């Protein structure tokens, strides 16, 4: 292994994040037991610097660290996404932590460490590094999920997430080991070469694929590996839920794509069915379960599952368009879901007591801005035009239909049916906010500026993607080229 100085630039965002994380940890004791908002500002600055570092990194595309790290458009695309998600999560957490009296500086440090893990996941060219990235981000998020220490549900969430998560990563690790046994390498291109040349032990390789699939499917929460999702999302602090539902999910999808397209693409006939069945089940289970929820946070958790199902449609397309569609959807999805959970964080109030749909009654007259932004997110989640969600779905459907196999056509038809189902439960919230009067006057909590900023930004981004999807779509297509 030879070290080259330019490799440091290839890792620059992660280095910046690590440094900021350490600074946050060191500065924490000096603030004592009071609001840790200054640390939040510090973490935010660190994240923004990491974003800038990603721009620097863009000048050093190519393989680094003995081909373990691959800086390409794909990794850059996801770096931008993941870092933006982290920045918005930090902003959304400012007042939340004060309100919940969570005065622990590690919160911000953990967010940064989780982001490092995600950064590694999306850029690694090698299975072990992917595993390391996944574990780094997972361990940080296990702790984050339990950050409402006094709340039983939050503890349960952390515990559940940790136990099931470890179990799933074990599957992943086992898959990596078998893959190594079968093909003699953990580098993605070499695995591919071995599969193409039929040098691998194929039985072992199929088992490895199945195990890798299980491990990754757990992280992106697709049926039947979604069992943990509703409870964890409901119990975790709302900003963490927002983070979990978009950040790690996007990173896991990225790793999923990279492994399955760079390394396992020769075996697409085999894994196509895994993805296909999983997509159908995920969409139907997610949407049908969301239909009967009266707790908005839980409803959004099920809707996250459903959306993973839509993304799998594009995955199943198995083409460059498919990858581009996944990437585009991840961005649109990140904006709307982050925004939606931030609204939940605000409306739920102290102790996150008010999560029921009845608490949203009359929100439009109490807080017009929140209600308007939430409506944008909800319409986008349905996929109404002029929102990012519409074009996201549009590109997904298109990617699948373009390939033309009738199985994919059916997948799209199921997607359309599920969209129709989802209209009902998303609009129930709109109805509560606009058409119903508040039953009892909820104590007025002023909307924090930081949160208002997050909501406005996410809503504007959602509408922008719905009006002018051009530039992002080009970037996504360019990024997809890196894999396929």
């Amino acid at each position, binding site marked *: 292994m030879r070290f080259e100085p330019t490799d440091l630039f290839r890792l620059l965002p992660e280095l910046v994040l690590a440094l900021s994380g350490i600074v946050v940890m060191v500065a924490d004791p000096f603030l004592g037991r009071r609001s840790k908002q200054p640390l939040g500002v510090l973490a935010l600055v660190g994240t923004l610097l990491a974003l800038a570092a990603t721009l620097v990194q863009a000048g050093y595309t190519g393989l680094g660290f003995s081909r373990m790290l691959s800086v390409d458009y794909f990794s850059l695309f996801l770096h931008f996404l993941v870092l933006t998600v982290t920045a918005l999560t930090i902003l959304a957490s400012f007042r939340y932590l004060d309100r919940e009296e969570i005065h622990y500086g590690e919160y911000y440090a953990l967010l940064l460490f989780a982001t490092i893990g995600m950064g590694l996941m999306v850029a690694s060219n090698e299975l072990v590094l992917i595993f390391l990235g996944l574990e780094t981000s997972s361990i940080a998020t296990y702790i984050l999920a339990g950050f409402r220490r006094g709340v039983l549900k939050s503890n349960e969430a952390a515990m559940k997430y940790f136990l099931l998560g470890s179990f799933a990563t074990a599957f992943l690790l086992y898959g990596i080991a078998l893959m190594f046994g079968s093909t003699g390498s953990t580098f993605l291109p070499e695995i591919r070469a071995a599969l193409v040349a039929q040098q691998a032990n194929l039985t072992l390789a199929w088992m490895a694929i199945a195990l890798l699939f299980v491990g990754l499917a757990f992280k992106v929460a697709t049926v039947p590996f979604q069992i943990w999702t509703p409870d964890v999302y409901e119990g975790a602090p709302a900003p963490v839920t927002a983070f979990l539902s978009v950040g790690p999910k996007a990173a896991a999808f990225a790793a999923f794509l990279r492994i399955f397209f760079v390394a396992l693409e020769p075996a697409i006939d085999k894994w196509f069915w895994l993805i296909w069945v999983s997509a159908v089940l995920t969409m139907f289970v997610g949407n049908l379960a969301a239909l009967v929820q009266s707790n908005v946070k839980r409803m959004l958790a099920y809707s996250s599952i459903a959306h993973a199902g839509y993304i799998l449609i594009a995955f199943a397309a198995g083409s460059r*368009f498919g990858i581009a569609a996944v990437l585009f959807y991840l961005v649109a999805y990140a904006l709307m879901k982050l925004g939606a959970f931030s609204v939940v964080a605000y409306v739920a109030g102290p102790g996150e007591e008010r999560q029921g749909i009845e608490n949203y009654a009359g929100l439009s007259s109490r807080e017009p801005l929140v209600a308007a932004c939430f409506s944008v997110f909800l*319409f986008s989640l*349905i996929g*109404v*035009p*002029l929102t990012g969600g*519409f074009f996201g779905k*549009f*590109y997904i*459907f*298109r990617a699948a*239909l*373009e390939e*033309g196999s009738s199985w994919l*056509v059916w997948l*799209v*038809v199921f997607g*359309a*049916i599920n*969209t*129709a189902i989802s*209209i*009902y439960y998303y*609009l*129930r919230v709109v*109805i509560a906010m*606009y*058409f*119903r009067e508040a039953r009892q006057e909820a104590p007025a909590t002023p909307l924090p500026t930081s949160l208002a900023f997050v909501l406005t930004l996410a809503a504007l981004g959602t509408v922008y993607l719905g009006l002018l*999807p*051009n530039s992002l*779509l*080009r970037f996504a*297509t360019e990024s997809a080229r890196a894999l396929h």
Partner: protein
Amino acid sequence: MEMLQHNWLSLVLFLPLLGAGVILFLPSRAYERIRRVALATSVLTFALSLPLLFWFDSSHAGMQFSVFHPWITAPDLVSNYHIGIDGLSLFLLLLTTFLTSLAALCSWPIVQRVKWFFVALLVLETGMLGVFVALDLVLFFVFWEVMLVPMYFIIGLWGHERRIYAAIKFIIYTMAGSALMLVAIIWLRKLSGTFDLLLIARLLESRVLVLQPGQEQLLFLAFFLAFAIKVPLFPFHTWLPDAHVEAPTAGSVILAGVLLKMGTYGLLRFCLPLFPNATKEFLPWIAALAIISIIYGALVSLVQPDAKKLVAYSSVSHMGFVVLGILALNVIGIEGAIYQMVNHGVSTGGLFLIVGMLYDRRQTHMIREFGGLATPLPILSSFFMLVVLSSLGLPLLNNFVGEFLILVGVFQVSVVKAALAAVGVVLATWYLLWMYQRVIFGKLTNEANRNLPDASRRELAILVSLAVMIVWFGIASPMFTRRMEATTKRILYQVESPYYEWAARPTSPPVHLEEPQP
């Protein structure tokens, strides 16, 4: 001026949105100013759309006043801002701008969230106009769906008692119905390589693109479902009575006047030209549904104790007529259908407006609450009479022309269908006149009605504009049918030629189709 004329259609399309933007910046308490800006915007839009009628070249079958800009230019996925009008959309455009002006004017009694009401109304207008002018399938779908959102809020926020139920039913029906249309649009893109409607039509006509039999049927059904729900045809009509009755007057006017036309517009714009074989294959079934709609809608109207519900169900009946006219697949039937779309918009819109005026006075739609209104409301009653007579098809008024053309067209293909449809006309006369009689004539028995004020100046403005349209369309029909003729013939050519008669007619298409600019 040249520049302005080239972009005239864009101007008409986005002017309402501009007005909505202006209203956003007005203080929400400035009711009077908000109303005036909204009214001025909608009237100006109508005024700007009128020249299109006179500039329209009736010898030209293709699109006119086209505007073309690239919109999505991502690799392999090109969708353009391509709009234009022909002899079909011209009239629906005019109808929309006309009815939105009236809808703005009739909404003075609204006092809750006035600002947002008018913003929604104007956004809705742009959405509806967009549906009629869009020539790119993605653009069309965007307008088609986006338009539902303001309508949903109009029903849900400013409607009557069961508004929430009606709003959700409305949006779920219409959105779910179009989900498969989106799939069909993308599939059509895969087969043809473009989202441009005119280009797809040309590819089909020149046999460069041939849809396989199974494909064509599936595509047809996906589009048809979305349109059948909008029209609405018989088994898909259940959202209509709820939405129309619970919506505020302006909402009902727009729903009945414009939204329903989108279904029949879609049939003429997409189903017939793109999927002619499937159209013919399913024709008997659709015609049966149309006839059921005509008779069922009329029979239900007959027994309604609620005047607004009566008008709502009469729409089901009248729209069945339009569909039947389209399915005649001859020039006279389709011209009649286009004509009748406009007429139904004006007349039924007028009925909703007048029922709304009565509601503003008495807060009820029940027929038995009224009676003998001719005494306190002589002016209103006379205009009511005119609108009722127009709606039941009295000669020299607008509906007569449309219904007559449709019946002649249908008669040419099937005497039985024409005879069954004519039953609808008879029933319409019955339920409308009976309703009028119970509301206006007789002794004034209910004391609450004794001192009702007659039409105000604002209401008079509405009534007179309606009367002008009713009479104008009743006596000046050649002025309009002339402009429909080339387009109608082109649609029929598209239905007849590409598959069946191609071998017999190898020459180039006789009508000119405009090339979309690169």
